[in-house]
């Protein structure tokens, strides 16, 4: 099963260390593989190094993609991590 969702990084400061940790924690519990895709570059959302290196800046558009048995739940959780911690609570 594959699930996908496009989101915008709304945090003024972009995606950096501490928020990156939140994304990794949200993605990690799922059996599915979870990726963030930006400008054709795909990284593993369970890897802090990967998420940081993606270095998404404010206003950029990302795709959250998950492949596996709990794909849609995983996408939802990661999107929520973005919404809760980057956007308005």
């Amino acid at each position, binding site marked *: 099963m594959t699930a996908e969702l496009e989101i915008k990084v709304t945090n003024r400061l972009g995606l950096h260390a501490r928020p990156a940790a939140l994304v990794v924690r949200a993605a990690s519990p799922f059996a599915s593989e979870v990726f963030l895709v930006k400008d054709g570059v795909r990284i593993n959302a369970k890897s802090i190094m990967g998420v940081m290196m993606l270095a998404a*800046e404010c206003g950029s558009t990302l795709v959250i993609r998950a492949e596996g048995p709990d794909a849609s739940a995983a996408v939802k959780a990661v999107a929520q991590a973005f919404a809760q911690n980057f956007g308005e609570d």
Partner: protein
Amino acid sequence: MRVVRGVAVTGGYAMGPGFQVEANVPRVAQSNIPASQVRSEIQKFNRALNRAKRDLQAIRKRALRRLEGRVSEIFDAQLLMLDDRELYHHVTQAIKSEHISAEWAYHRQVEVAMEVLQKSKDEYLRQMQGDIGAVARRVIQYLQGLKQRTLADLRIPSVLLADQLTPADLVQLPRDLVLAIATRAGSRTDHTALVARSLGIPAVVGVRGDLALERKGQRVLVDAEHGSVYFSPGRTEIARYVAHTRRTARAALDRERLADQPALTADGHRISVQANLELLQEAGFAQTCGAEGVGLFRTEFLFLSGERLPDMETQLHAYRRLAKLFAPRPVTLRVYDLGGDKLFYAHRAEDEPNPALGWRAVRLLLDRPALFRTQLTAMYRAAAEYGNVRILFPMISHLAEWRKVKEFALSVRSELEGEGVEFLHDVPLGAMIEVPALAIEADRLAADCAFFSVGTNDLIQYLLAVDRANPLVAKLYDGFHPAVLKTLQAIVKAAKAHGRPVSICGDLASDLRALPLLVGIGFDELSTVPGAIPQIKAVLGDFTLPEAEGLLKEALEEETAHGVDLRVRRAWKRWSRRTGKGDSR
């Protein structure tokens, strides 16, 4: 004498023997291993990761005890780096397929990430390089069997000199052994500076020039007010340092002498003097100053960098600690006063033309129920253990809004009932009076509100229609304006009619001249910056309650702030002649 300069990040002075912190930077070169060694090399890598992880977990735990939540989060990302499966996979793959040593494989992989971050336009991401570097160094030192830099040789209080100190270094060191730090790396906003500030260590970073000692134990003076580091300082520099130390010591003595004394007028009328706090770290200082509770804790300062709002657990931890520190004395937690001049809320859609009259405080919170709920949950729960927590709501502007806020708080409380967590049922809910409309409604409000706290800064600004940050009109901003005094009097009268305690926070409360007027008006509690508390206690005893009331009566007959001011001055002159102290204002 030799002097080098850098960036002062904390303030303060310190002098003592210099201690050179050796960087112990591991050298990594490409090295190959025989195929037979692949398995043991991976095992070695696993062991190194585990040991580094144990270290960091211990450091994080220590940081949680010594620093507030936001600061200790620095170590969360570092721990996740050690758990990074992707990184692990790349390293072990390289060991298996290329037959290279673990340290070379790891080093190479980390370097790739560092290079990407180096190029980032985001300052925070560039700073992450320092954190990643620190973790990588730790792992590689274990892989090479090198000793971790524990600074174990540091035995006497010293000034630490280093190319770079990490947040972990600072957290691990006993505070009393570190007089000050001076480093070549670092900036005002990086994590090391953040931790130094949190721990109150005088620090000069980004030093251009040589930090090497000419001999062991050479005397070093760090001036973290101006960003200078003196090696073998001369007489002038030492004199300046001594004068500063003496001033600090004298202030400390005053604080100690008065700290345990109650605040009483000459005829024994008692006032509770409490502290306004922004950070947990200030709590200790406030206690040394003799604060009889926290009259105002500005919770919006809990998020240092404005990246995101602290979650429930982080807030609960902070509020609980504060409640515990001051129990059984009251701790007043004010819900976020975001917006307006406090632009910590990084996610604001756009700037408002007139933020002081705009979307802020409870107006914003009522529009963001999830945010509001999280904060109130933490407050209700934090109140459970010691029962000394009060919740204060800023910027209420009409009765209906107060009812809405209260209803919201009570709904959060009922949700908690179903969850089986500990919370206090009867947390006093109070309104901050800073909008004139609410001052006019004070009587009806008092019937439904557990306590009042008057925020004078905004109240005066709104009442007199003066922006005190605007130099063209700032002189019109005056707490002695008779209309201000009358408004304060009406608020206190309404509170007393309903038996509600009423406190005053804001700059007027720290203004010693205004003290007799505020006492005359009938405030039971003053909440001020901690440093002003000893002086308030010291001069409160110069006059009696009837004298303060008499002065207020006279003052209210005046038409101008200037007239009020003259009367107040005359009264102080009379009192100080009587006490023989000289004019203390």
